[in-house]
C-alpha cells in the first residue's frame, strides 16, 4: 500500500472515531437536560459563582436528584427554543414558561405558578392606572407574553388599551428596557410580575408596579409534543415535592410563595 493511501485511511478513521465519540457520549446515567433563559431572574439566572440558580432551576435539580438522573442545565437563546426541543438538544423548557396561547404546541405539565402581566413605571412619573398610559410609550420584551397580550387582536379591552399608547417598543432583554425607562426613551415596561418584583426591588424601589394588571396566566413545564412519558415522570416527582413541602420551601427562598399553585 502506498504511503498516501495510508494517510487517507488514517484521516478517514480519525473522522469516523470523532463522530462516534460525539454521538455516543450518552454515558450510563440517564440525563435530564433543561433548557432555560439564563437572563430571567428569579426563575433562572447565574449566581456569584457563575452557577445557574433560580426557582425553576432548583426545582429541576431536585427532580433530577430524586430520579437519579444527571442534570444538565442548558441556557438557550429564547428564539431558538423550538429547535432545541425538537432536535433533542434539550428535554424540556422549564423557566417561567407561559402556557396560555401555547397550549397545543407542547406537552405540558400542570400549571405550577400563577403569573400575571403587569406594568412598571417610574415612581416619580405620576402614572397610577392603565388609563394614565394614554399617549405614552410602553416597552416589552420581544416574543414575551406581555407583548402577546398587548398585541392580542381578539381581546377588545387590550386592543383599546394598546391603541391608546403612543407606541409599543420591543427590547431584547429587560435590562435594556429598564435602561430605556431610566433614560426616558419609554414611559413604562410591561412584563411578568415575578420578574417585575425582582427588577423593582434590586433597583432600589425607584419604580412601582401598577395595581391594575394586564392579564393573568399560568406557568408550566413544556415538553416536546407527545413526550408524555417524561412529562409524567417529572410531574410525579414534582407532586411528591409539593406533598413533602420541598416545593414551598424553594418558592419561599425566591419570594414566590404567593404565586405558586399546589397540585391536589
Amino acid at each position, binding site marked *: 500500500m502506498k504511503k498516501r493511501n495510508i494517510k487517507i485511511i488514517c484521516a478517514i478513521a480519525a473522522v469516523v472515531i470523532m463522530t462516534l465519540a460525539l454521538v455516543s457520549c450518552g454515558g450510563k446515567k440517564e440525563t435530564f437536560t433543561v433548557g432555560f433563559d439564563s*437572563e430571567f431572574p428569579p426563575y433562572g439566572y447565574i449566581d456569584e459563582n457563575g452557577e445557574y440558580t433560580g426557582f425553576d432551576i432548583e426545582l429541576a435539580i431536585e427532580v433530577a436528584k430524586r430520579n437519579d438522573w444527571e442534570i444538565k442545565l442548558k441556557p438557550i437563546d429564547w428564539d431558538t427554543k423550538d429547535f*432545541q426541543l425538537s*432536535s433533542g*438538544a434539550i428535554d424540556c423548557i422549564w423557566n417561567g414558561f407561559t402556557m396560555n396561547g401555547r397550549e397545543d404546541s407542547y406537552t405540558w405539565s400542570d400549571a405550577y405558578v400563577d403569573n400575571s402581566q403587569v406594568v412598571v413605571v417610574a415612581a416619580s412619573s405620576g402614572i397610577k392606572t392603565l388609563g394614565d398610559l394614554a399617549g405614552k410609550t410602553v416597552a416589552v420584551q420581544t416574543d414575551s407574553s406581555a407583548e402577546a397580550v398587548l398585541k392580542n387582536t381578539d381581546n377588545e379591552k387590550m386592543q383599546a388599551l394598546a391603541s391608546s399608547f403612543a407606541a409599543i417598543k420591543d427590547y431584547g432583554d429587560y435590562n435594556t428596557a429598564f435602561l430605556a425607562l431610566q433614560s426616558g426613551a419609554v414611559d413604562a415596561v410591561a412584563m411578568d410580575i415575578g420578574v417585575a418584583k425582582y427588577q423593582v426591588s434590586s*433597583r432600589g424601589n425607584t419604580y412601582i408596579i401598577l395595581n391594575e394588571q394586564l392579564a393573568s396566566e399560568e406557568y408550566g413545564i413544556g415538553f416536546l409534543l407527545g413526550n408524555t412519558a417524561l412529562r409524567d415522570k417529572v410531574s410525579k416527582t414534582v407532586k411528591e415535592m409539593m406533598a413533602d413541602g420541598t416545593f414551598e420551601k424553594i418558592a419561599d427562598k425566591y419570594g414566590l410563595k404567593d404565586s405558586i399553585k399546589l397540585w391536589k
Partner: protein
Amino acid sequence: MSILTMWKLLLQGFEISVLIFVVTLVLSLPLGLGVALCRMSKNPVLRGITKVYISVMRGTPLMLQLLVVRFGPWFVFKMKLDDSYDIWAVLIAFVINYAAYFAEIYRSGIESVPKGQYEAAQILGFGRWRTFFAVIMPQVIKRVLPSVTNEIITLVKDTSLAYAIGLIEMFTRAKQIAAAETSMLPYLFAGILYYIFNYVVAFGMEKAEKAFGYYEIK
C-alpha cells in the same frame, strides 16, 4: 455580586471566546488558501463549486450558518446530538465561514502579482510549486496583511454570535451578569476586554507587517 466576581465570571466566558478565535484562525487561514487556489483553478467544475461555496458563505448571515450546522444534522439525518456538540458546531461554522472570506483576500493578493514574475521564475528554472511558495506567496502575504487584520478583528467580535446556539462566551456572560445584577457595568467590562484583545491583535499584526516590509528601499 462584587466587581471582582463580575470580572472572574467574565473571564470564564473570555476563555471560550479566545478558544473560538484561536481555532478559527489556525484552521481557516490555511483552508482559505486552499479555497483560493480552487477558486482560481483551471478545472471549471472545481472553480464553479468553490464559487458557489464562497457566495453562500458570504451571502448568508453567520448566525444562520451556526443554526444550520447545529440543528441541520437533526432536521436532515435525524441525528440527535447533545450539548457537547455545541462547541464543535460553532468551530465548524466559524472555520468554513472565515475560510471563504480569507480565500477572497488571498485571491486578491495572488492576482495582484504581475504575470512577468511567473515568466521570470520559469526562465530561472523554477517549478510551479516552487514559484508559488518562494516567489509569489511572500509578496501575497505582505499585500493582504492589512485586509487580514480587518477580518481578524471582526472575528474577535463575531465570537459573540456563538450565543445563538447556547454557547456561553464572554458577551453572553456579560448579559447574564447584567440580568442577575440589574446593572450595565458588565457590558462596560466586556467592552474593555474586547478592546484590549483587539488592541493586542492589531499590535501583533502591525509587527508582522513591519517584518514583511523587507522589500522596501529605505
